């Protein structure tokens, strides 16, 4: 028997690592949740959790931080997956945080609810006594994320201190915390955007229709096609046009830019991503505000 038989290809190894992390979360924490945005990364996490605990159901709820500025398709997808998996859904509502006076809407032309999510997320974590929030963050996404741990400690204000992280060696994770603190866990830390698409294709995982090329009313803003919606305030010079587009990432409908594309199958999307010369977050205006936009938000407790 050749010893070569016993090695995993890169996708199997990434899958195996992610399943290991998810099981460690379940074993080390009392009350974990999966942060579910309806985006592809959180869908992959949910798929991996299904595999990690099969034939048991996923033993923890999904948590959605709802900005109120959603793609209707995302909400439909979320509700369908909850029903299919038979797990609980916790919703943290940014609108409620605004109504309760916890946060105030941003003012100005490029106002979004992106940063407001931090308060809603931390409130939802506290009120549901969540001790570990599992996210789909990947180290290849952004330079601040390149330093994330699999098990990432948050202090009792929900803040991340990148200079004072616990060293993480081999596959031994230290999930110990004091009352009021919590963890974030990132099972797909080592995946790239390409890995995610290749995995979705291989496993034939259902994703929202928004990822596939479709006709949509859009406005050209900050180098991306922003979808027209009831939340979008048009500038005088801006014009709504219909384009065949798809989205590479899904977030708040007001800041998620689409790209022109004909890719309407998983295979075509994977091919398209392989040839991409721009990063996926390049179409996200939330990251364009400054050189350290992501780091600043992460320190405060962002996803």
């Amino acid at each position: 028997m050749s010893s070569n038989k016993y090695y995993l290809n890169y996708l199997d190894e990434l899958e195996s690592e992610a399943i290991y992390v998810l099981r460690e979360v379940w074993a080390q924490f009392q009350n974990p949740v999966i942060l579910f945005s309806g985006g592809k990364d959180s869908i992959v996490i949910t798929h991996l959790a299904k595999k990690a605990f099969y034939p048991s159901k996923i033993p923890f709820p999904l948590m959605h931080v709802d900005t109120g500025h959603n793609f209707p398709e995302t909400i439909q997808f979320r509700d369908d997956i909850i029903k299919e998996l038979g797990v609980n859904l916790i919703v943290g509502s940014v609108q409620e945080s605004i109504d309760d006076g916890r946060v105030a809407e941003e003012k100005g032309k490029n106002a979004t609810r992106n940063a407001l999510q931090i308060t809603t997320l931390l409130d939802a974590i506290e009120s549901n006594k969540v001790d570990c929030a599992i996210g789909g963050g990947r180290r290849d996404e952004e330079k601040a994320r390149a330093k994330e741990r699999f098990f990432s400690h948050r202090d009792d204000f929900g803040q991340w201190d990148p200079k004072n992280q616990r060293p993480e060696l081999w596959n031994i994770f230290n999930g110990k915390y004091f009352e009021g603190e919590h963890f974030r866990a990132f099972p797909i830390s080592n995946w790239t955007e390409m890995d995610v698409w290749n995995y979705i294709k291989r496993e034939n995982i259902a994703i929202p229709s928004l990822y596939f090329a479709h006709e949509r009313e859009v406005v050209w803003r900050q180098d991306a096609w922003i979808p027209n919606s009831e939340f979008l305030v048009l500038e005088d010079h801006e014009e709504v046009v219909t384009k065949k587009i798809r989205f590479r990432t899904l977030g708040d409908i007001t800041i998620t830019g689409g790209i022109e594309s004909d890719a309407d199958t998983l295979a075509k999307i994977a091919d398209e991503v392989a040839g991409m010369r721009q990063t996926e977050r390049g179409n996200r205006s939330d990251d364009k505000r400054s050189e350290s936009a992501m780091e600043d938000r992460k320190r405060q407790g962002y996803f």
Partner: protein
Amino acid sequence: MLDNNQLLRFTTAGSVDDGKSTLIGRLLYDSKSIFEDQLQAIENTSKKRGHAGVDLALFTDGLKDEREQGITIDVAYRYFTTPKRKFIIADTPGHIQYTRNMVTGASTANVATILIDARHGVIEQTKRHAFIASLLNIPHVIVCVNKMDLVDYSEDVFNDIVSQFEQISSKMLIKDVRFIPMSALNGDNVVNRSENMTWYQGSPMLNMLETMHISSDVNKVDARFPVQTVLRPQNDTHRDYRGYAGRVASGVLRVGDEITVMPSGFTSVIKAINLNDQELKEAFAPQSVSIQLEDDIDIGRGDMIVRSNNKPEASQDIEVMLCWLNNTPAKPRAKYTIKHTSNDQKAMIKDVVYKIDIESLNRVEGDDSLSMNDIAKVKIRTTKPLMVDTYRENRFTGSIILVDDSTNETVAAGMIV
């Protein structure tokens, strides 16, 4: 990418002055792993800082403080893919908390790359890098003799550095060492073969990384399965199902194997191995699976399933090479939580046998203190037995960390000897 492509993890050790960031930038740039908006961003930054041309080192820029101070504070992970392999780089800083970060990055690596400035040859830092690669038992080492452009691409200079390095590495346990003369700045022998050093017959770095044999890096002999959690669905279709979930740490386990559960010593036979709804005939490292046994025995997290004819040692007294990773020094005879595979116990450092002087690599006896970045051989006593192998034989059942219960911080990492 092809379906049978493997994942290779490597560390880069060196400081900014060795051209480490430039090397990583060069690898990413020449392998076309950098996106246009990233390139645009560093072109702008290069201009803003008054650099001539594009400074490839800026690709590895990280946190705000690091950009301001021009140093790397923490291990950063980078990714790139070629048609042959997927690569993960653990980019470890050369200056601050050097040992702590390099040990962290090295713990999962297949390959350590060590940078040497061709003008300076083997220096103290090189020795430390080689020592840590050896201590962490990294299977392969690539010594990159960089800045060859500054020594006229001289073969003699290169050969001299090779023999200097071999002198120190011969005293260490490094299995596979390779040397490459390069200029990361100009791209010689990084991705593309150098036209300035036709005397070099070996491969450029990327080709070496793409083709080196790594399947044997994993221990395939000693079957070890630490149980992470127990799956008991208790639904109508799986009423009596009891699956032990975990990741194979080493070796191969097959349906029908006679197994022993450590530390209880109960024996049984593997009834089934599952991954999701798939039934597997066998599972090998590093697969995550769940295992069902023929007999109903009491097994939980912290137990280890092994083949009955090949067991690890159950021991409460272990000797480890310990790296101290925390600003607070070790407290004499204090209790720590020891984490080993999926097992947590209390432990006490009973004795410091010797410390390693990281400059001279000599053993120092009679010094019991352990502070940040210290490396020492220590004796540890645990409250209950751990099922251990030596680190040399098994990276995953031979490694431990210590957690300080008063801060919950990870304060030390250890390799069982």
